[in-house]
């Protein structure tokens, strides 16, 4: 579960996020849509603590990160938050000097101190489930874009996060792979994860997201159950955006 209240973020003198309020129910998928530069990526970066928030609070399970915390306390909470939240970056950021298997077990072994053999067994399971079992010994640069993305997903899952953040998961995928990715993400939700997915591709979110959130200029214009928001958008700006997206 995630709860965001009054979240603001400034950078370089401009207000990038202007007081966001929303929550994501456990084991559901939230799709975030919005024009380029509306602040979607920044929002995700706040949710995993890469950006320091300037106002408001983020709550995830029993971790509450609030802007007014003292720096040391804030830093501790960020670390706790990151244990709950897994991120799949738009540009993946796989570790190029490590094999696929080592990419996945790196954090479990050195952060969670899981014994190596145990971590490896679990990593192979994840790879198996993602159809990448045979790539375990290869290095990221030799994989296709889609394969690399699944490695990044396995790397995030290996930390057993309750929340998964995806930034533009379909930017490197063809339509068929997109459909497979949608099914995969659906499965994660069914298995108990809470998902936040940022995507330009509205068609990808349809059938995946339980609810949608439309952002513009660092504000939430409208949010609601997917069917409802698509069928009857309340705000003129949402209508415009959906019009153009179709």
């Amino acid at each position, binding site marked *: 579960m995630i709860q965001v209240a009054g979240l603001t973020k400034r950078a370089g003198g401009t207000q990038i996020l202007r007081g966001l309020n929303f929550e994501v129910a456990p084991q559901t998928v939230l799709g975030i849509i919005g024009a380029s530069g509306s602040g979607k990526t920044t929002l995700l970066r706040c949710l*995993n*603590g*890469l950006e320091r928030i300037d106002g408001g609070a983020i709550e995830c399970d029993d971790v509450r990160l609030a802007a007014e915390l003292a720096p040391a306390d804030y830093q501790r909470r960020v*670390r706790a938050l*990151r*244990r709950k*939240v*897994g*991120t799949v*970056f738009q*540009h993946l*950021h*796989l*570790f*190029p*000097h490590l*094999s696929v298997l080592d990419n996945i077990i*790196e*954090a479990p072994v*050195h*952060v*969670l101190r899981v014994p190596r053999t145990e971590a490896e067994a679990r990593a192979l399971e994840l790879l198996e489930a993602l159809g990448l079992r*045979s*790539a*375990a*010994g*290869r*290095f990221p*640069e*030799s994989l296709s874009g889609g394969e690399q993305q699944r490695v990044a997903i396995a*790397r*995030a899952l290996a*930390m057993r996060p309750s929340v998964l953040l995806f930034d533009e998961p379909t930017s490197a995928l063809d339509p068929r792979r997109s459909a497979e990715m949608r099914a995969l993400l659906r499965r994660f939700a069914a298995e108990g994860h809470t998902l936040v997915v940022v995507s330009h591709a509205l068609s990808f979110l349809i059938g995946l997201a339980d609810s949608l959130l439309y952002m513009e200029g660092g504000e939430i214009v409208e949010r609601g159950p997917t069917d409802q928001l698509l069928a009857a958008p309340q705000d003129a700006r949402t209508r415009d955006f959906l019009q153009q997206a179709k």
Partner: protein
Amino acid sequence: MTKSIRCLCGALAALLLLTLATGSVRAQEQPVLRWGADPSGGAPYVFADPARPDEYIGYEKEMVDALAAAMGRRPEFVPTDWETIVSTLQRGSFDVIINGLEPTADRARQINFSKPYYIFQLQLTVRREDERIHTLADCRQRTVGTLGNTAASRLLAQEAIPFRSYADPVGAYRDLELRRIDAVLMDVPMEMYYARQNPRLKPAGAPFQRGTYVVGLRKGDDALKAQVDAAIDKIMRDGTLERILRKWNLWDDAQAELRAQLEAPPSASNSNTAFDLTNATFNWPEAILRLTRAACVTVLLAFGAMLIALALGMPLALGQLKGAKWVQSICTLYIEFFRGTPVLVQLLFLYFGLPALGIALPGWLTALVGLGLNYAAYESQVYRAALEAIPRGQWEASYSLGMTPVLAFRRIILPQAFRIALPPMTNDFVSLFKDTSVAFAISVWELATAYRELANATGQFMLLGVIVSAFYLLMSLPMAHLARRLERRLQRRQTVAAVQAEVAA
């Protein structure tokens, strides 16, 4: 356009005429006697007048003036370097060496000598409070400082007493004061001028081991040799030399003996050998042994300095990249200072300057630390560039997996940066190998110093040069090779793993 060219031509023509005119004026003058000597730390032979630094004084300066007058020539002084003085004479930079030159056997193979004009003795000097050393024999287990390539240094080598060569007497006596060495063995004239007045030093025992000073001439310059010999005869007979030596407080019984010999002509030519203590001849096994020892010093210097550079470079790079503002400024200041000033100057400062603050490191340690500090500045920039080349996403991916900055740095950033830094690091290491040669400035007996000394002693610049170059290559090539292999292995590991995975599948 044409006008300015014409102007230029005119100016050039005028200049040409002027030089021709002054040239012809010179030609009408007496022939010159160009004499070479090392004026740095050269008292009382020839040295810059402390009162008027653009003029040279010294007993040999006055003697040359007298000799030249006797020869009907105009003296022209050519300042040169003591260590390479014989080779410089051979390449024709001047006509004679007059610099307290001893007629050693190995020099006799390279140049001719005049008859002797002075008999010197050696004096051992120790610290005022030293009660252990009274004679040279007491120095067997200690280090004695002396001037490189002199009768004194040859005597020490012959007696198998550990010694360190200096480029000038000042450095030797200073190191004696600073306890870097235990005694100094030097010709009496120098000892009188540089040590006798020093309250912290005292002579150990009486002067001993006579030797002669002669004028050095190129082989084949027989006419000049006859002139020089005749001139020496003349100034000895007419008392000019005695007057000069007395003025410089250098006249003693030995000089009277030398003049007495002059009165008995037949034995005059024998005097060379009669007084020659410096028969130490050069042998190749010994030379190779000394070169090998010097090469070991070079290797130790290079590795030690590189270790310091690698260890210190990382905190510097991190300080500059991630430190607080004041840490950044300090790191930048350090880096710019060490990169912006010559390493030679830094070494001289560490060696001669630091003792003023009470820190007197031995020469080899000074060289090791100095080169290490210097290269740390360069390595930090290599690291910095490598660290900056790692995309920010690598940090962020690590953080979002729950890693601390330290863990992310150690496991994710550093291994990638290392790969980028390896080629420039190898480069730096090879050039550090060569830069160890600046240590000769502070009398560390490494390979370049050894080359200079041995080659000067023998005149074998070519052959020894080839051998020394081979030593350097023997040391640096394996390094470069090793680094290249490591680089290739790191690169190939990825492709090999990929291929293996494919084969296994």
